[in-house]
């Protein structure tokens, strides 16, 4: 199958020009070739096997990190808020 580098990089929030194009295409195609065996495997018996149960916690608010602690690692901070560039032009 053909790997559409532009589309998948865009969906992954990456720029395709961040790669050696030939190398990454070759690599992705060989990985996809490896995983391509799965669509052919018979899985009709798997519906009867139970999976793991998901246990959710109660939605209770508990103390967490202070604003200062959270902001310590932010790349840009102003007035106690994380600074980013304009979101809406």
């Amino acid at each position, binding site marked *: 199958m053909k*790997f559409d580098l532009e589309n*998948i*990089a865009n*969906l*992954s*929030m*990456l*720029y395709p020009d*961040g*790669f050696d194009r030939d190398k*990454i295409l070759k*690599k*992705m195609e*060989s*990985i*996809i070739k*490896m*995983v391509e*065996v*799965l*669509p052919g*495997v018979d*899985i009709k*018996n*798997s*519906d009867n*096997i*139970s*999976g*793991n149960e998901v*246990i*959710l*916690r109660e939605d209770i608010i508990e103390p967490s*990190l202070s604003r200062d*602690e*959270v902001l*310590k*690692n*932010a*790349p*840009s901070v102003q007035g106690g808020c*994380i600074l*980013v*560039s*304009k*979101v809406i*032009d």
Partner: protein
Amino acid sequence: MDLFKKSGTELSFMLRSKECSAREIVSSIYSRIDSVEEKLGSYVTLTRNMADKKADIVDKKIASGEIISPLAGIPVGVKDNILVKDVRNTCSSKMLENFVAPYNSTVVEKMLDQDCLIIGKLNMDEFAMGSSTETSYFKDTKNPHNLDCVPGGSSGGSASSVAGYQATVSLGSDTGGSVRQPASYCGIVGLKPTYSSVSRYGLVSFASSLDQIGPMGRTVKDVHLLYSAISGYDKKDRTTVDISNIPTDISELKNLSGIKVGIPSEYYLTDKNTDVIKSIESFIKFLEKSGAEIKQVSLPNTKYSIPVYYILSSAEASSNLARFDGVKYGYRASDYTNFQDMYKKTRTEGFGEEVKTRIMLGTYVLSSGYYDAYYNRAQSMKKMMKQDFDRVFEECDIIVTPTTTTTAFNLGEKINAHMDMYTSDISTAAANITGIPAISIPSGRDSKGLPIGVQIMGKHFSEKLLFDVANFYEKSIDGFDLKIKI
């Protein structure tokens, strides 16, 4: 006295009997690090002040006659994706080069409660994606048995530091074999615990349904000691369960009679792996001679381990690593035109090639038109593999395989042969996919003198049996042979 060479259980005994102090242990470990770190490259960050302060606390407790915990005063190295408060946590990535952990992971909190000495943060493959530690943004780590060879990965620093006597024990993380494969390559013991027995709170997520933190050490008892300290229910990780009523203490077995050992016909070994074949065969003979019952078994769906592993882990990684966007923490590109451009530049510049490859693979298998064929099918295969193991465990107590099909390879040898690198998880990934515990112990050496590892897998929460069998073997051969030249 070379305290750095002692095992954790020996050091604990020496501390209690006042044959040495915790401060002396710290000095010994750091002078060892000073002399070999340049060659091995195990550590990303050292935490000497922290270790010194903890050592003083331990020494004061001993002086005042207080009973110390089994891990008190024992030097531990921590993989650089497990948070230690106020210490840099890089995941060996440019993305987190300057990230300082604002809180402790649960496992670190538990170790500090036991007065462990945290020596530093250990090098790894970037975001734990790799099998050789060569995808680290910072440096290569070397195998203490041969400096031209990789230590394995992704917990390469965790393995090389323990094998190179730069830490007594260490923590790694294992998503597809990342504790067991480097343990095997470096001739030490490494455990991938049952999924849900050790909290992942404070472990930087790679593939949440597969990730487990695992202990590594030079002896089975040291690995058991660390496992006992870090395991158990944690309300901060809802996948953990209360295992306090499951015994884990090692029993000193006299023989292995009554233990049924399954040997899967699917070994994935070819005639190229003669040394590994010889080693596993002699290990099986040892088990049989010691009274174990050997049974040939089949795990037919394990042949899909690698594709299932890469689909599930990459899908989860593409979602987990979406948080690295240059906004809240981590690297942010300096030159951008708008918000979207900042996201994309930050991620393109901040992640290395292997991480970007996995994110794209994950995005691809989750994308419209492919989701059912790949992701959903891999989830079904996961259930079928689990059923294979359940069936075998109805007639066997443990399953034995080689940990890896080869021994450590040369640095640079496989970095561009990624399929070879990916398939090196062939024997280990099934334990992550099915959630069962697996331990790797040294079982000999190849013709080049490099360590070979054997893997023992068990039912969910059967760590005690794995420790018992591994400890019995270690005792029978008078301890593992860890002769290194440096």
